């Protein structure tokens, strides 16, 4: 079983991972799409709803 110290570390790590996923996930999906897309789009066309 985990010691109290380690429990705290795990909780902290999960918290950090959660914040990273919260702010990083959509940019990550866009980055993966942008890199692999064929043909390559321009960034402004990617983000604006109208262009």
């Amino acid at each position: 079983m985990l010691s109290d110290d380690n429990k705290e570390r795990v909780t902290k790590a999960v918290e950090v991972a959660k914040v990273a996923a919260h702010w990083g996930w959509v940019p990550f999906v866009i980055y993966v799409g942008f890199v692999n897309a064929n043909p390559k789009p321009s960034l402004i066309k990617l983000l604006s709803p109208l262009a």
Partner: protein
Amino acid sequence: MSGYQQVAPGEAAPVLQQNEVAAKLHPEQPKSASESVLSPITSTYNRFMDWRKSLNLGSPGTAEAMGREAKTTLLSNFIFDGARADLTKGISLNPAFQVTHSFSLGSQQAPPNYSFGAVYADAKSFLQGAVDHTGTLTGRANQSFANLGTGKIQAQLSEVPGQSMIQLEHDYQGLDYSINGKAMNPSLVDGTGIYIGSYLQSITPNIALGLETLVQRPQPGISESLTSYLVRLSGSNRDWLATAQINPSGMLEATYHHKLSDKVDAAATLQVINRPQGKEASASLGAKYDFRMASFRGQLDSTGKVSALLEQRFTPAFAFLVAGEIDHLKNASKFGVGIMLESTTMTPEEMNAAMQSVPQPPI
């Protein structure tokens, strides 16, 4: 034969024969004494596998996908009220990549909402993320690992404490069975969370039986489990499909889907809850018509609701939606209109070139 075959999603994963495994593990070794000792076992195993293949049972699909045909025919999952607009921009077809802006307004149930999402899909992975104006993220990621099935993560992350959830899942489809394991909000520290395991096995080409066990650990030291039984029956020429999930605590969920023709689907669902406190049941019956540029869904249910949804495509890039529901018992109604606009940054030539081979992502 190459050791790492590509497996299309939905297709049964190739099963390694015992002798193939042995050949892979010891490629150049001459036949050893231990192998000749094991040979009666491997030959029996091979005969068993050949017999099993000859039955031609087919994959039963996953336990989670049971009843999906009925759910996509009924409009309960598609109905909305108020006004909504979805602007989708296709950036690439192979691999698929698109971004979506969606707006919704004036709904009786939900506050006005704006969300921005992105989807990326190729033959091995599926990534999706959407963030709304309150900063809530919903996302999913599926990754298929050739022979080892598909791993899935689904999450909703919010600033508001207690509204975040994460679900980890693994799917494996064998020759004539499927296994699925799920963990919802698992805690690494004290092991709390909800864990679900299911197994579905084809018994004949048309019948599959299965078990699903749910273990709930709301607090450390407390755990409850519940096992339900799954049945899936289908017609020999795949025109109808019936599923049922029964658990001993007194719940029954049954669905029926019938493909009446290429363009017409009918579906029915029944849910019965039988508890000592009282019985409850609800049923719904619906149909879906596909026209060349439109689809229409109509539904009746036992709570006195009549609803309809029309999706009309004026051009391939522009669709108009109308939804309505009348609750005769409560004397209430809902009404919704929506548009869907699809644009692309690709030229028609690029589009045609990409259309040739669009991969099927692991959903």
